[in-house]
């Protein structure tokens, strides 16, 4: 086990920090928050052209960078630090991973060049919001001659609005899960963006009414995609954990900087032990979260190379997402407290981190949700009936 970054990786992250400090500064974030689809298309285009990060998980054979999840996690940390608003996780991580794992040669040959050129995609699978794995799929895929018809509603789809194509999960009558590549402008597809409390993470509802799907649109050669959906949910959770580590780090840094300047009772408030101890507790959670993330990133990379052990990705994602979700809420909430009154203003950015902590906490499963998943692995199901049924 080696938890050291290579020199190349360190360089990538330093470049990312420098780029985002400018491209995703407070003004850029605030402009994205009120933009039509939650981000400025020009900013995304610039990122694709200058950084080429949309290519990280695209294989070199398709002109991608062929890098992996350690790079993804490190860049996402930097994005989290800067409240980056673009569709990076939805498109360049989750949808791209789906295509890389289960796309046919033909599908990859047609989709990857579009993504490389700056188009975006989003995976939609949630028919309900009490579950975050393949069990949450309620849309249906029914045969219609040589083709299929897809019907259903998808909730809480991150960065769907503004995307060029969608990956829609749907159940076949035999219970198997399919994923179809569907153009956003296909007949029967409606995407409705919603105003969100955390304005840095846009969510949409996607509705599919009698959308025609052909065999060539189905991932995994039309085979069952339930495990893939479960895995993609875990990949998404690990990605959010990376964003949370970055956001926690920045909340801590900003709060400590503020307390070093603010003077009350004739001394900086940083000199009060109550404040120092809060800061120490914040740092402990940031660093512990980072450790959980780095392990999860290594496991995600094993998954990408089809060499993770069964259950390993699920466990790593559950540990990282539960710890980092709680950590971000604690750290950003404590940061708001350390800022005092200015922490409650719209003008200071710390409130944006606090909101993002809460939105990323619940999305793809809260701490409690993921801990129950771990408990099932460690203890078996909670109810004796379920246990007997095993």
């Amino acid at each position, binding site marked *: *086990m*080696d*938890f*050291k*970054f*290579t020199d190349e*990786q360190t360089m990538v992250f330093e470049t990312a920090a420098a780029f985002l400090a400018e491209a995703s500064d407070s003004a850029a974030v605030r402009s994205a928050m009120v933009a039509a689809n939650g981000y400025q298309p020009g900013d995304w285009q610039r990122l694709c052209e200058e950084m080429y990060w949309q290519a990280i998980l695209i294989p070199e054979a398709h002109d991608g960078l062929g890098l992996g999840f*350690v790079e993804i996690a490190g860049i996402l940390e930097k994005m989290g630090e800067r409240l980056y608003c673009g569709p990076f996780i939805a498109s360049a991580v989750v949808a791209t991973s789906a295509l890389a794992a289960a796309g046919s040669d033909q599908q990859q040959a047609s989709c990857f060049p579009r993504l490389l050129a700056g188009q975006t995609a989003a995976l939609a699978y949630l028919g309900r919001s009490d579950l975050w794995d393949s069990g949450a799929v309620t849309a249906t895929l029914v045969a219609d001659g040589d083709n299929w018809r897809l019907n259903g509603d998808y909730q809480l789809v991150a960065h769907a609005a503004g995307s060029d194509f969608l990956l829609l999960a749907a159940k076949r009558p035999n219970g198997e899960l399919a994923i179809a590549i569907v153009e956003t402008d296909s007949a029967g597809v409606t995407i409705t963006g919603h105003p969100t409390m955390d304005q840095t993470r846009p969510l949409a509802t996607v509705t599919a009414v009698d959308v025609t799907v052909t065999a060539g649109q189905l991932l995994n050669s039309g085979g069952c995609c339930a495990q893939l959906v479960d895995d993609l949910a875990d990949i998404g959770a690990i990605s959010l954990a990376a964003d949370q580590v970055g956001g926690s780090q920045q909340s*801590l840094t900003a709060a*400590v900087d503020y*307390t*070093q300047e603010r003077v009350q009772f004739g*001394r*900086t408030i*940083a*000199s009060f*032990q109550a*404040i*120092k*101890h809060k*800061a*120490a*507790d914040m*740092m*402990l959670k940031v*660093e*512990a979260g*980072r*450790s*959980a993330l*780095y*392990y999860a*990133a*290594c*496991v995600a*990379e*094993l998954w990408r190379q089809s060499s993770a052990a069964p259950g390993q990705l699920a466990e790593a994602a*559950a*540990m990282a997402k*539960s*710890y980092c979700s709680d950590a971000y809420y604690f750290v950003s909430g404590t940061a708001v407290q350390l800022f005092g009154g200015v922490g409650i203003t719209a003008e200071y950015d710390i409130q944006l981190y606090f909101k993002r902590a809460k939105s990323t906490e619940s999305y793809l499963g809260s701490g*409690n949700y*993921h*801990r*129950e998943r*771990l*408990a099932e692995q*460690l*203890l*078996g199901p*909670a*109810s*004796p009936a379920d246990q007997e049924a095993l």
Partner: protein
Amino acid sequence: MNLAQNRADELFRSEVASWLEQNLSGEFAQLRHRGGPGDEHSFVEERKAWEQCMAAGGWTCIGWPEQHGGRGASIEQQVIFNEEYARAGGPGRIGHIGETLMGPTLIAYGSAEQQARYLPGIREGREFWCQGYSEPSAGSDLGNVKTRAEQAAESGEWRINGQKVWTSWATESNYCFVVARTQPGSVGHKGLGFFMVALDQPGVTVKPIEQLTGSSEFNEVFFDDAVCADSDLVGGPEQGWQVAMALLGFERGVSTLGQQMLFQNELDEVIALAKSNGSYRDVTIRQRIATAHTGLRIMRYNSMRMLAGGEDGSLSKEAMIYKLYWSSWHRNLGNLAMDVMGAQAQLLAGDGYQLSRLQGLFLYSRADTIYGGTNQIQRNLIAERALGMPREPRG
């Protein structure tokens, strides 16, 4: 960054495992899982013999450089050794303080003569050490040490007077390293010396203190004109603070990494109990067990990050949170163990105050957040050294 195991390290792991398997047998088989917290006084003589058996096999002091009789094992290998030791149920190490604290300090700061005199006794499991830092008026504020050391002009010999307290293992030890004031009237970090004092002499009295576990791991140690040769002063008569702090650096470093496998054994016991007594159905117990599992795994990854930071023992950010992190985790595990046991936790196994491992864990783990720098002191250190916040005002 990857999870692949290094081949040489894996070979080392199997070498350790098979040596322990072969040797923790016969007369030593009864020592498996004994001598831990709350059980310190079981089989003391047998455990000293076990230290000598380990020494004969070359398994004490493996992290010391070869020139001092160690194996020059890398930090990874030391962690592997400790993991396998805990996995095999190796007994509580009586030689721990000598091996991980006094030895490395002598290697870094001792004279060639001191190294030749004391290192072999530690390595061979013949001589045992305890730590004489804390005093009634010097706990977190170690700089307030009042024990005095005076040098006789003619012989150069030092006479030590004063009292230490909370001295772990003093009853079983041959020597104590004592921080004492060499400059009358000096205050704080100045004017202190670091002495290696033999305990078996008329000027030293050791009085065990009964702990909340019923056992007496720590003691009061009284010095009443105790004698210490000038050659047993480490560093100069005013370098004691520097030596004492370097030793604490060792205490907060590698020496605690091995305990993670012990923690895993404890957590496994809690999980097995929850499964068997039905508490696995309780939603909050499920949440807490998952939290403990995640917390322990993170502890491991924290240390992997620490190890990636180099072998110089310098404290990186991950290392600065390490003590606060593990002590709090372990204390919470103790409470979880009690809650999984429920009211049954109150029943003791027999006469006297005999605690089961989990009962002992609950009580003893309260000390984890106190010794080796309390959680509050750790938070001060993190805030000041890692986050650059102002230092505490002094009274």
